[in-house]
């Protein structure tokens, strides 16, 4: 439902805390009682994730609005 379509164009990100490069991993996002699995860049040590701007303002926003109108 919420996919990170631009994974290949993802920035080169390092977790500044763990000094480890972020790699794609499964993350759960939730809103108003619904949960979705998403592939996001993630620090495999501390679990910090990255939500890119186009995902937050695109698909995520669409799903938020659809759930709000349920």
């Amino acid at each position: 439902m919420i996919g990170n379509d631009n994974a290949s164009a993802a920035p080169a990100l390092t977790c500044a805390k763990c000094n480890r490069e972020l790699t794609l991993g499964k993350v759960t996002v939730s809103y108003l009682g619904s949960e979705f699995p998403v592939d996001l860049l993630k620090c495999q040590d501390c679990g910090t994730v990255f939500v890119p701007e186009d995902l937050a303002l695109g698909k995520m926003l669409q799903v938020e609005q659809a759930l709000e109108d349920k």
Partner: protein
Amino acid sequence: MDHNRAKERENQCIQEQPPKCMAACPVHVDARSMIDCVRRGDYKAGFAIFNKTVPFPGIISRICDHPCQTACKRSDVDATIMINSLERACADYSDSATKKPLMLPKKEKKVAVIGSGLSGLTAAVDLATKGYRVSTFEAADRPGGHLREFGVETLPSDAIEKDLSLLNALDVSLHLNSPLGNPQEDLNIDYLLAEFDAVYLGIGPAPVESLLHGLVDTSDGLITITPLTYSTSHQKIFAGGGHRYGHIYSPITSMMDGRLAAVSIDRFLQGASLTANRELEGPFETRLFTKTDGVSPKPATPMANRFNGYAREEAEAEAARCLNCQCLECVKVCEYLAHYKSYPKRYVREIYNNDAIIMGSHNANRMINTCALCSLCKAVCPVDLDMSEICLDARQSMVGKGKMPPSAHDFALRDMAFSNSDAFTLARHEPGHSTSNSIFFPGCQLSASSPEQVTQIYEYLRRNLSDGVGLVLGCCGAPADWAGEKAITDTAISAFADILKKMGSPKIITACSSCLRLFRNHLPDAQVESVQTILAINPLPESASVKTPEHVTIHDACASRHDHAVQGNVRCILEKLGVKISELADNRHLTPCCSYGGLMSLANAEVAEKVVRRRISESDADYVTYCAMCRDNFAARGKRAFHIFDLIWPPSDEDPAARKGPGYSKRHENRAKLKLHLLRNVWNEKTAEEDKPMKLNIPPDVTELLEARMILIEDIRKVIAHAESAGQRLLDRKSGHFIAHYKPVSVTYWVEYSSDGIEFTIHNAYSHRMELIEGISK
């Protein structure tokens, strides 16, 4: 909203009422739609509409006595539309054959129709269409009755024959030379009652005493006919047409009689009530309102050849005169109502359905939250229907059921919470006084837009009013009220009421129309008036004459729609200032909202933009408002606009009409600083030094982005503070920027920033409401 109330509101809207022509027509020809087809030159479609109601279009289009034309609304302006001539044009130019109506399956029951004038023919056609076996008996040697008395120039025989071919198509058996006779003759009433299940008598105006004993009033020899049902004293016999009207012949009324008698016969044969739900049969008074103001007079289109009827061009010119009667008064003045492309009757239904559904999408949520709640619709509505009431009720219901989209009003409610937090709230008697005769309540928006003026107004009030003028800072609760958040509104109002009580219940002086209205509605015992009133009756301060424009136009605040005193006082102040005033066409009680009301601009930026653009395009003159949000909304789109206070306390450093209002973050900052400024400078209190916040560098394009995305600088600070203290941040190796996120309450903010050790430069920010479930699963 309960079902009955929704129904009541739906019925209140008159837009779906028929136009006057249609309501006056005994058989309700949809002349408005037909004429619209003629206007477009589509005679085929026009004919289809006419023929849908009238089975004999060639006849009726030539001889109708057209009560529709007497009723036509256009006659209020100049001359009635020549509706009957346009019917004739449809019949002449459509090249369509009279359409055979869709027949129901054949029934066994038989009906006799006596007389083949218009009433008998219509009854025969309608009953045959319903599947009955119909036999028509005509005394003469050809059908038509009264129709044969028109001259051939008016109604040529071939027009009659063409229309009557329908009888054949519908399998109506026609018996000519068959007069209804005395009991000893072949065709008599006893025979008919024995052979048929029902009888319709469409027999013309002559007395029939000798033929129909028992049915007839002996004083005049005519059949006694019950008006609504066309029934007689014999349950199987119905009657109508010319027999009811004597020698006054109305073809369209005869047609109506045949049609309505056929309805009764059908009901009788099916064992249904003859009287239920028949109120709107025949001519009636419509409730539709149509404004004719501004319609330029144009005489009826002349007909070059009276016998041939209108030529095509003539017909189309005449059709173009039709007002296409609609109400739509509210839709015409409200961009919000126009945006959703319908009208209140439909909107009420949608809103009710939205409220009632349990499963599935609530598709009207956004529409409900877009209304400015300004009640302009009610001000222009001929029947006082108020969409504000309906939308606010729906919002309260959504909040009550937990169905209000969290994103709809979150920003405004957080803004209100800020204004009612310690950062802004303040309640003090005037320095040197232990009581207050009145208090000044500037509200949250003037304090955010023009904090200096709040200080100046407070000084002015202290100088001009006696017995102590206290000051109360805070938000009145209007945003929560608009959001349908009753509990939050009540909390805000009762907190304010407690303050008032502690201060000795002083008079409230407001600077904002919304605060004024809210206090009057929710605190009926409180005395409330506006700063404008004080300014109108007291001398203006010296600063008032410094920078006054020559000429302005007034935009009234929608919250003051019915506050004639405030409207008058604003004009009085402008006169005192010597400013020439021109009025907008829609002023005072007809003023539209600027798009801030009802939190419209936060719920639907697209509609809000239309609303504000329309208003600012109405005059080239500089506007004067008396609401800070109206002024800021106009100025944000490049419209020169003053707040009335700008003319009295002009800002020293800039052109007040051209200045852009502060953004969301600056508005918070202005309120907080105003409180500290007043405490220090009016009450001479030492306030704690503000914490030195981290130094931010936000380039103008990013500031604009934050404004559009409604991200406050205080939230940016929280994200960076969290990232820097917890170390939870990402490094973009290409740009060298840090990316961090944090969720202070319900929204997760992402900030891309860099730091040179002295200040943080913000490169980007965005947000989402979805929650991330982070961490490493074990």
